[in-house]
């Protein structure tokens, strides 16, 4: 610990602070009079930048998409598409963003004849805009993807358009891919990406953004986080803000003190040990996705699969694993996957005597009741540890996850499920995990079924025998997304689908 009880350095001796600014399209914007909990979208509008649109304020339509300059896992700079309606200004202070107005230099100057950015030109040519209200968001999603080298459906699945039916936008994306295959992008944006970050991401020291009513802290080390929590009993932790951002965006509740985890380097790392993968709680999901693809291909198919169906690009660029767990939602998508993989949490807190402590908790013991968790005040999730390897004695692991929503893409689950079956050479099951979301007050395992499966052969007969038990395993509720009956059916059918697909997979 760097400081003791008496020092309270943050409250009484504020660190010398550089002026609070935001670099928008290369211009420095002064944030001094701006509340740190104002959303970036509202800030842009208030400062006269109305190109970025609001379609929902919920993170669901993408009309508000902007590109934020971020440092990728490999240390290189990237533009990332994010929903500005869910980002409090405090989270982007001292950062660099590009909005739709920034793509054509002459347009920002009020002229109307400057050359369009290739992304814009492609959209004009294919008829990618009709009413045009969604268009700035699409432009920014395409823009970020353009410099990432892959302009495809995934880049725009978080953008809703009610007019075009997406086909001309997809044509624009295809045309861009062709252009990029012929000549890699080379312009002032690629130039910018090749320079070192003007504001290192994450920055080296604590950023404190004290508004007239609200305070926003971006500490860089875990002890700072703990100490801030200790000093401000009314503080709320914020990671990606994709859950909390809804309340901020709609000003549903006040947030006098927000302590952000996004600059804490220790929370943004992924480690592999002999026996486990440890994912920092504040690693954005898109980063977990690319890590898993490159470093752990095929190791956690159920995690990879679920991340594909988790929200959309803009949200995955912000949302974190820690947030998905800590929020304690019964319909969070990653808890079932992590439960099926026997993940454990490392939790850090500050003890009575201001001594930091760490505890380890199986995820299965974390969820206590509807939106209630084992997390104590002034604690935070540090990392999630997922064991590597399969059950000793087993020869093969079958593992997959499923998510069913009214809409395949970017929807909240009606039911999410994740399964693990380890079988030994004889074909008998030596380890079974069936975890579900959306069927109980908490993400839950069907423990009785898991036991019943032990020692059985992994075959059609076993699955048929287990189905009636599984049907009775949960008593879900009916809601706007689906009836209790449908949920119950899915609990059973998804397991059978899993069986059929693993067997088909074997046959192929």
């Amino acid at each position, binding site marked *: 610990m760097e400081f003791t009880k008496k020092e309270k350095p943050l409250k009484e001796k504020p660190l010398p602070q550089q002026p609070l600014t935001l670099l928008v399209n290369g211009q420095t914007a002064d944030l001094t009079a701006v509340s740190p909990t104002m959303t970036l979208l509202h800030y842009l509008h208030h400062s006269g930048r*109305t*190109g970025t*649109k609001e*379609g*929902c*304020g*919920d993170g*669901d*339509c993408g009309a508000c998409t902007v590109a934020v300059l971020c440092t990728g896992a490999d240390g290189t700079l990237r533009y990332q598409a994010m929903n500005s309606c869910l980002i409090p200004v405090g989270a982007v202070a001292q950062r660099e963003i590009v*909005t*739709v*107005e920034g*793509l*054509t230099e002459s*347009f920002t100057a009020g002229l109307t004849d400057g050359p*369009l950015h290739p*992304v*814009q030109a492609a*959209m*004009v040519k294919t*008829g990618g*805009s*009709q*009413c*045009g*209200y*969604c*268009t*700035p968001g699409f*432009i920014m999603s395409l823009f970020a993807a353009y410099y990432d080298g892959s302009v495809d*459906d995934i880049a725009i*699945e*978080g*953008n*809703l358009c*009610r*007019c*075009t*039916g*997406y*086909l*001309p936008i*997809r044509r624009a994306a295809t045309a861009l891919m062709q252009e990029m295959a012929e000549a890699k992008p080379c312009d002032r944006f690629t130039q910018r990406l090749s320079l070192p970050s003007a504001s290192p991401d994450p920055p080296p020291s604590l950023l404190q953004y004290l508004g007239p009513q609200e305070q926003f802290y971006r500490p860089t080390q875990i002890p700072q986080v703990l100490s801030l929590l200790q000093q401000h009993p009314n503080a709320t932790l914020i990671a990606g803000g994709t859950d909390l951002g809804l309340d901020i965006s*709609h*000003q549903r509740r006040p947030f006098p003190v927000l302590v952000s985890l996004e600059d804490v380097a220790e929370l943004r790392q992924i480690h592999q040990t002999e026996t486990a993968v440890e994912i920092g709680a504040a690693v954005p999901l898109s980063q977990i996705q690319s890590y898993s693809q490159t470093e752990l291909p095929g190791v956690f198919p159920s995690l990879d699969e679920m991340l594909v169906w988790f929200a*959309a690009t803009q949200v995955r660029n912000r949302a974190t694993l820690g947030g998905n767990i800590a929020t304690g939602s019964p319909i969070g998508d990653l808890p079932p996957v992590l439960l099926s993989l026997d993940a454990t949490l490392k939790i850090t807190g500050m003890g009575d005597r201001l001594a930091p402590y760490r505890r380890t908790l199986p995820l299965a013991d974390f969820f206590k009741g509807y939106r209630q968790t084992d997390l104590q005040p002034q604690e935070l999730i540090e990392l999630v540890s997922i064991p590597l390897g399969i059950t000793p004695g087993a020869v093969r692991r079958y593992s997959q996850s*499923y998510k*069913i929503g*009214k*809409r395949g*893409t970017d929807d909240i689950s*009606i039911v999410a499920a994740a399964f693990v079956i380890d079988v030994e050479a004889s074909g008998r099951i030596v380890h079974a995990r069936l975890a579900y979301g959306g069927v109980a007050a908490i993400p839950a395992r069907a423990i009785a079924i898991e036991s019943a499966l032990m020692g059985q052969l992994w075959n059609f007969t076993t699955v048929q025998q287990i189905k009636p038990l599984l049907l009775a395993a949960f008593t879900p509720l009916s*809601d*706007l*997304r689906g009836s209790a009956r*449908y949920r119950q*059916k899915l609990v059973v*059918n*998804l397991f059978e*689908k899993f069986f059929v697909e693993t067997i088909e997979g074997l046959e192929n």
Partner: protein
Amino acid sequence: MSIGSRKPHESAVGHVTGSAVYTDEQRRPAQMLSVYPVTAPYAHARILSIDISAALALPGCVTVLTAADVPGCNNTGVIVNDEMLFPTETVSHWGQAVVWAVGTTELAARQAAEKVVVSYEPLEPVLTIEAAIATQSFHTCPQTICRGEPQLALRSAAHQLSGELAVNPQDHFYLETQTSWVIPDGEGHYQVYSSTQHPTETQTIVAQVLGLSRNQVVVTCLRMGGAFGGKESQANPYAAIAAIAAHKTGCPVRIKLNREQDMTLTGKRHGFLGRYEVGFTAEGKITALDADLYADGGWSLDLSPPVLLRAMLHIDNAYYIPHLAVQGHIARTHKVSNTAFRGFGGPQGMLVIEEIMDHMARSLHLPPEQVREQNFYHGTGETNTTHYGQEIVDNRLARVWAEAQTQANFAARKAAIAQFNRTHPYQKRGLALTPVKFGISFNKVCYNQAGALILIYADGSIQLNHGGTEMGQGLHTKMLQVAATTLGVKIHRFRIMHTSTDKVPNTSATAASSGSDLNGQAVKDACQTLQARLAPVAATLLGLNAPTEILPEEIVFADDWAYCRNNPDAQISFEQVIAAAYTSRISLSATGYYRTPNLTWDPVAGKGQPFYYFAYGAAVSEVAVDGFTGTFQLRQVDIVHDVGESLNPLVDRGQIEGAFVQGMGWLTMEELVWDEAGRLRTFAPSTYKIPTVSEIPENFEVHLLTRAAQEGVIYGSKAVGEPPFMLAMSVREAIREAIAAFGPPGTLVPLQSPATPEAILTAIEAVQAQSRCYETV
């Protein structure tokens, strides 16, 4: 870049650069105020008291608007006066705005609204069509359209079936929510900027609530961020609220609903209940239909009567039904007042007849596409005449149908799918082909008129005004093309002006797919008037250097030049002609006007020629359905659609694709859910799901019908906004084919709409249950 070219949207560059200005993004005038509603927590309740004192005490709260502040008429009903702007006695739907707080900022207005205390006595609400039928809660008397003797014919039919279909409602989900600005000039006039499809009606309603004549109010629509019918009448109340606030405070006032407010306050596509009895031959020829259509009107009438009428006029879709009676009813329920939405009742009527076609086909073990085809309107006279007595003069059904089958390679794919289904127990594919015939014109005859105003300035630059509004459909683009072609000048000469009631008065809504048909003719008319004035000027100028006199009739205007037909090499520029016209004191501005000819409608008899012509299309969709979860994937779509001689293929294709996807959303995922208390539970995109790019198949082919010029319509084109919406019925029918494949042949497939995964799984279970019955028999 004139008629027939793929000119990009006139605002495309503005869209992609973010510089296109929408209503709420104009530079705000000083002291602009915002408003925020106080909404009802009950679907139906008596208002006992309203206490605004705590709100008024808040800093930032300017005032709270109540019924007492309405200087004119406290009503915004568009057909009848049944829509209280500020309810005084009862609230009639959950989330209804009761009073509005006015604040210096939106947050201040909202905080004030939260301090208003309204006490209520809850009353029993009517929340469904079934409940309305049970309690006889209707807005109007039933309407009937009848041909022949349906009951008699039913009794003598070889086969008879009866059934029922609940057609789901749909939220417009335009990306730009309802927005209005009202700026008082301090001299008793009001400038309104509204995101409205119907500036004239918005003007009428604002004048009405303020107690002013219409010339005191100007309504301007810059452009809309989508509308789809949702801003035809629904924009009016919000403009009216802002106007009352502006009247009371003397300040400019803005209103922009947030998404949640927009979804809870505004009307939607009408949910319908269709009940039918149908008689048919053993070959699947329909002989008689007796149907009841119940539209969920919601709490006020709004546009429900014409919506219902269009449903009744489209219950035939493409099919000749010798004996047909359709009764229409408008249920009065305690929900938002349902309204216009792309297709305007047509889709609901057509979904019912497609349900019937499928019902007949499966009960006879016949392929659905065969039953559909053999019931088409055909020949001449009676077999080619609708139940309301309009002969289908230019019947293109057989053409679009045959071309769609060819384009989609229908027969071969159907066989391949049957093979696939035999070997895949857990996943089934389905292929379906459905037709669309859609009548073009407003049913209300007097709406079928339009005006335009063209101003040429002495430097040769031109302003183009017309009565239509731009909501993304490309109307302005097409009007520029029409004007440039007719006047014989380059398109960049024009500046298209915002739609404004001080330029073209007494306009009709931009709706019913009629925008370019009506306004195009008016623009053309204005251009022709100007050309007639310019031709003598050009003739004189050209005549100066010509050996013989040049007559005005010989002048050709093309591409910014004028020349004599007999001597195209001697040209003078358009600028020269304009400069000369100015000095010769020739008027350089002109209005244009158009009314659609030959329309008749007798509402009592239910007969007439309500449509100028019909638009046709056919679509083939293929899906794969997962038997475990009921989820489906759209695999391929092939469309043949008739847009006449396309004014702009880029724009028309965009309309077809966009409409299809919107229709697919309606039929498969867009589910509005109300709870038992009548509270809408799906008022945000987190709970109300419209399609994303990932639901769109890679294989999506649109073919515009060729050799398709439509006589009597602007440059041979055809209306395109609404008709393709109903092509999406092919997705629903393809899903049904796939579900049927889970059971034995001839299994009936009761499928709810929307066909959500849950509805599909329920249907799969139903066909599997039937198959078990077959096995045990």
